[in-house]
């Protein structure tokens, strides 16, 4: 029986051994550098955990001898921690919501429409990401002092919008660039008004991107130190501000506990939005 080369090729489904071996080493080689990388990233976290749950960990003991949650209890029962945690959460939530509300129309226009001055609009939106935050913060501080917003939560929320808006707008504009308005036309002709269409069609269609944009805004606002310090004038103490003052105070246990408290909410938010972080930024369209 003669075998033509094509069917021989088709029948031989498993790749030749040589390629498989190469593949194995290739993968291992790709994976190896990650181990020190991950260790490097996780090490501080491990040190924090060791400090936060230990009592009397002194040189030269390699690990703490007694474990306790008393440090956590102490820091978490401190009213300053709770106030700063509450303020940070409120500010980050308000900033996320506001930047979605403000960024949405801009993103829609930039993603869906071609108009004169579109490039200039992009550039203007980019600017806050390249201008040093110190310059923005100083300017805003002078302005807010004059109009009475300095030292208030409102003022800080407004100041945080400066770095969050570009990211929110870019994320949503990317979604709208691949969005088909005809879904909205369908809703209109079926009897839905403009608001109803926004809430029952447009927002669900781009929901994955909204989640990602909200995550960005939350994280940027949550870790904002400089703007909070400048605008808050020391009257509003958010968690990063508290953490910085603790860090200069020098008690490693307090620093470790505060750092872990600081890490928890963003970690929860990332877990909640993780399934939207890769893949399509808008829903599949039919």
């Amino acid at each position, binding site marked *: 029986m003669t075998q033509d080369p094509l069917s021989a090729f088709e029948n031989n489904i498993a790749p030749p051994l040589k390629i498989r071996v190469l593949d194995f080493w290739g993968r291992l080689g790709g994976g190896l550098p990650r181990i020190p990388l991950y260790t490097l990233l996780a090490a501080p976290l491990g040190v924090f955990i060791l400090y936060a749950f230990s009592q009397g960990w002194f040189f030269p003991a390699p690990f703490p001898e007694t474990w306790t949650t008393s440090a956590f209890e102490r820091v978490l029962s401190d009213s300053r921690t709770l106030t700063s945690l509450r303020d940070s959460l409120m500010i980050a939530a308000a900033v996320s919501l506001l930047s979605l509300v403000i960024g949405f129309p801009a993103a829609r226009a930039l993603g869906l429409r071609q108009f004169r001055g579109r490039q200039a609009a992009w550039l203007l939106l980019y600017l806050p990401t390249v201008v040093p935050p110190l310059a923005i913060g100083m300017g805003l501080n002078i302005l807010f002092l004059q109009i009475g917003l300095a030292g208030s939560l409102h003022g800080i929320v407004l100041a945080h919008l400066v770095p969050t808006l570009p990211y929110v707008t870019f994320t949503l504009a990317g979604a709208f660039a691949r969005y088909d308005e005809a879904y909205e036309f369908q*809703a*209109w002709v079926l009897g*839905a008004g403009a608001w109803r269409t926004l809430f029952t069609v447009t927002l669900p*269609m781009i*929901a994955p991107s909204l989640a990602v944009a909200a995550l960005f805004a939350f994280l940027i606002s949550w870790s904002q130190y400089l703007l909070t310090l400048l605008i808050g004038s020391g009257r509003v103490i958010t968690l990063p501000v508290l953490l910085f003052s603790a860090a200069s105070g020098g008690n490693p246990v307090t620093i470790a506990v505060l750092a872990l408290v600081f890490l928890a909410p963003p970690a929860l938010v990332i877990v909640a939005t993780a399934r939207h972080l890769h893949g399509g930024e808008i829903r599949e*369209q039919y």
Partner: protein
Amino acid sequence: MTQVNITNLTKRYPNQPAPVLDNFSLFVENGEMVALLGPSGSGKSTLLKLITGIERPDTGDVQFDGVSILNLPPSKRGAVFMFQKSYLFPFLSVEENIGFGLKVKRTPRDEICREVGRMLELIGLPGIEKRKPSQLSGGEQQRVALARALVTHPKLLLLDEPLSSLDTEVRLGLQEAIRNIQQELKIATIFVTHDLGEAMAMSNRMAILLNGRVAALDQPNVLFHRPPCVESARFVGVNLFLSGEAANGWLDSAVGRVKIRDAKKAGRGVFAIRPEHIRLFKEPKENALPGVVQGCLYRGEYMEYQLALGGQTTRARLPLSAGMFAHGEPVFVQLPAENLFEVAG
């Protein structure tokens, strides 16, 4: 039951020299299906946008039962459309998609449920209420999109090439389904397509849209056999035009002298013939002009010959029983007088 009267609709986009729609008028009778046939860019889709209110016309009026709808928002007009893509909301189930139009009108839940069930029966897909659009085939998606449009009892149904992305078999099935449902519910319908066969099979009347205006409007069989002008004739498949001086029942054209039926016709005129009425012979015949076979295509139901006739090239469709003609063979092209008809130049 609605009569739709579109009068003198004009729409011009900025930065475009010619208007997309130019004094467009069309009347759609109660329960009638009008097919709108035209090349791309002829203004078909723009017309649908103007009727539904997604865009505003520069001038002209659209009336439903004698009342202008131009000042109503799209949600209050009662004109629904269906596109080439189904545009089913991907985050809603089939049931919720079909019920969308009823839900926004605050219809009670059990009534929505009943209507959705009735619609699924009508489109021939009972029992798929809970599925998501992603679990449906292309044809099923279009059926659901049709159900979603019809459940609101629209005054006017606008179909924008709803079948052009489907396989032939699915398309033929859906053509029939849409036609039956439309007649059962007696909804005035405008059907936009570029497929001549589809337009003829589905519509009561057919309009040919060229350069933003109606070039021809008539029943499909009339338009197919006697298109009124050269452009519309080309659109229904005619490609032989003889222009010349007519006198005493004869036409003197550049291609040759042929007999015509209208003995009273005198002066310049353009005459045309459908490709399936052209006959070929190896020997001279009455009303036959000498030509050469330039190409030959086997089309299954018929043979298609490309012919050089005078200075023109044209196509003839011959039944398979008419014998075979070889490439390069000189032939006599018979243009029967009863099949020659006059068109406006």
